[in-house]
């Protein structure tokens, strides 16, 4: 019987088929950061348990790290305690640990692929919902809670129910000015933030095949915003070439057999999906979110909706609350929304390609006077170094952007980078939730090029007009 990619990876990792619809699934790769792991290590110590396979883990700090003045002591004692706990736990349990001042340090979901730690066909977990990012390689990758972090540390497995299969096919050719971020937002806008609940989404079709590995990571990253625990893209030549020569990738003698295994992972011809969605990629336009849920997307040429546009009373109420929180009027043109702050970064859009896209717009221009702060935060030290080699940092700083050190930064307001109450933020991150970027902060999700364009214009603007 033809199998989907998800079915194949699931079968490859089945340790035990348990009663009650649950299987014991083997976990190949585990990324650990400072926020969701300390209680898990405490649990191991309390029970006198060891880490089953230290070689399956990379520990790296990202959520809490400051993105400037790293040479100075961290003023937040709680952040410091969490960062120190990660280091101490990594040492105690013998894990590969990347220091904050190491060039490889960065956001877990940038570091994993960059180091070749993320590989096609593996199961990969992390105590972070954006672990779905790694599905870009054809890895079954998903976020887990802290109890599950402890479970994986101790047993190298998880007790999991099997998800259903969904395929999202994006046809046509993506228009100029649109990027993987717009594809992700278009899909979430179409199926809603619960549209993928209970499913693993496989992305397919010519638009997906044409995306770079970076673009595929952006797309898979936001699978969780559609409710799906994981997203997948079938490995192809781009995947194999990306892997070649990376520090944790298979070595020369094994690389070709690994590559041939990877190429066979894609869904079989005729495989049946529980749900199929098709989106015409040629119709995608640059998108902006107006509300407090990632499904609140609207074209850059569009208008803030009326609550009455929704038929569901609960959605109407949510729209009213969102309008009040965002300080927007129904019917207002999106291009009339002023931008107070700009954030280019996060595990969604902080890779070299994102830096290049934003720099192409910023080059030779100036951040508008009304913008309080526009920051560019590369996803890792290696992305930062490469961008500097290409002179992108100069383009940004000359245009009035700040060029920061790598970390999660203003995506989630748990480090010094945050937006003020009432400020509209053009953000390349993944969540526009209430208070996500700071209490009262108003997040609008956009692509890196759209964020850079908004910084220059001082309001949202169609990047295709640049």
């Amino acid at each position, binding site marked *: 019987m033809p199998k989907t990619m998800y079915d194949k990876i699931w079968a490859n990792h089945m340790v*035990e088929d348990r009663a009650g619809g649950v299987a*014991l699934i*083997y976990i190949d790769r585990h990324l650990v950061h400072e926020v969701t792991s300390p209680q898990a290590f405490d649990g191991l110590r309390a029970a006198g348990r060891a880490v089953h396979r230290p070689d399956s883990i990379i520990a790296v700090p990202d959520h809490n790290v400051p993105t400037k003045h790293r040479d100075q002591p961290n003023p937040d004692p709680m952040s410091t305690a969490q960062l120190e706990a990660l280091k101490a736990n990594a040492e105690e349990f013998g894990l590969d640990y990347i220091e904050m001042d190491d060039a490889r340090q960065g956001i877990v979901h940038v570091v994993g692929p960059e180091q070749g730690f993320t590989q096609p066909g593996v199961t990969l977990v992390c105590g972070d919902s954006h*672990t779905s990012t790694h599905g870009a390689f054809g890895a079954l990758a998903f976020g887990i809670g802290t109890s599950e972090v402890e479970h994986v540390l*101790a047993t190298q497995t998880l007790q999991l129910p099997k998800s259903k299969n969904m395929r999202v096919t994006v046809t046509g050719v993506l228009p100029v000015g649109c990027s993987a971020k717009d594809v992700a937002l278009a899909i979430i806008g179409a199926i809603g933030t619960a549209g993928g609940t209970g499913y693993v989404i496989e992305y397919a079709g010519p638009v997906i095949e044409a995306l770079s590995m970076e673009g595929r990571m952006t797309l898979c990253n936001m699978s969780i915003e559609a409710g799906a625990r994981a997203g997948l893209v079938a490995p192809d030549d781009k995947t194999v070439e990306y892997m070649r020569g990376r520090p944790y990738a298979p070595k020369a003698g094994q690389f070709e057999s690994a590559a041939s295994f990877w190429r066979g992972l894609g869904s079989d011809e005729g495989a049946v999906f529980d749900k199929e969605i098709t989106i015409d990629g040629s119709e995608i336009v640059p998108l902006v979110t107006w509300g407090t849920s990632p499904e609140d997307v609207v074209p850059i040429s569009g208008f803030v909706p009326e609550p009455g546009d929704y038929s569901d009373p609960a959605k109407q109420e949510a729209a009213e609350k969102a309008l009040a929180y965002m300080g927007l009027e129904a019917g207002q043109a999106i291009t009339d929304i002023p931008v107070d702050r700009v954030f280019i970064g996060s595990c969604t859009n902080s890779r070299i390609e994102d830096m290049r896209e934003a720099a192409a717009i910023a080059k030779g221009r100036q951040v508008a006077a009304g913008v309080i702060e526009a920051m560019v935060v590369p996803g890792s030290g290696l992305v930062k170094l490469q961008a500097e080699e290409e002179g992108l940092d100069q383009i940004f700083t000359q245009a009035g952007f700040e060029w920061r050190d790598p970390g999660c930064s203003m995506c989630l307001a*748990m480090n010094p980078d945050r937006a003020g109450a009432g400020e509209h933020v053009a953000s390349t991150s993944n969540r526009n939730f*209430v208070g996500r970027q700071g209490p009262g902060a108003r997040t609008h999700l956009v692509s890196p090029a759209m964020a850079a364009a908004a910084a220059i214009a001082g309001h949202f603007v169609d990047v295709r007009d640049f």
Partner: protein
Amino acid sequence: MMDKFTTINSIATPFPRVNVDTDIIIPAKHLKSIKRTGFGEHAFETVRYTSDGDLIADNVFDGPRYKGSKILIAGDNFGCGSSREHAPWAISEMGFRVIIAPSFADIFSGNCVKNGILTVSLVQHEVDALVIAAEAGHEMCVNLDDQTVTCGNAQYGFEFSPAHKEMLLDGLDEVGQTLRSKAVIGSYEDKQKLMTPWLFKESMCTERSQK
């Protein structure tokens, strides 16, 4: 090891907002503790406190009306967003043992089970009826054994994973349970070392310290 789940009889707290994300349940700035406790006071912060940090007296979580409630009645797609287990820790610290909603985000509902919280999915009109009953101060009974929610004359059945049911009813230590399969895990690994040897340290790239 968590407490065994028993039948819960309680009034219920109505909070039927859709797409309540884990940043609303517990904002990221409060995730810096390295302990499992202390999150309850910050739970639903934007609902309970003004922007100046003053408690809103009549909010559903702190007002006298729903004091002692062990059941939270929520809206569709409850718990979406981040995987932070701090969300169920916070909810548990507020005293809730059951959340009833039309649907839950996957990671959140998984995290709830591990912390002795039962997530009950009912269809929208049943949840709507329970919201009305909760607002009227009626007590309801949630029985995991029978998989029913009873309120007055109304009774609603719900589906629940048999494996998770067993875990909640027995208050199981999941890690301890899995470690009983250690030998099976070991033989799986032996097989994988032959199938995909590049995933094991002995055959991994030697340039690991390369920057």
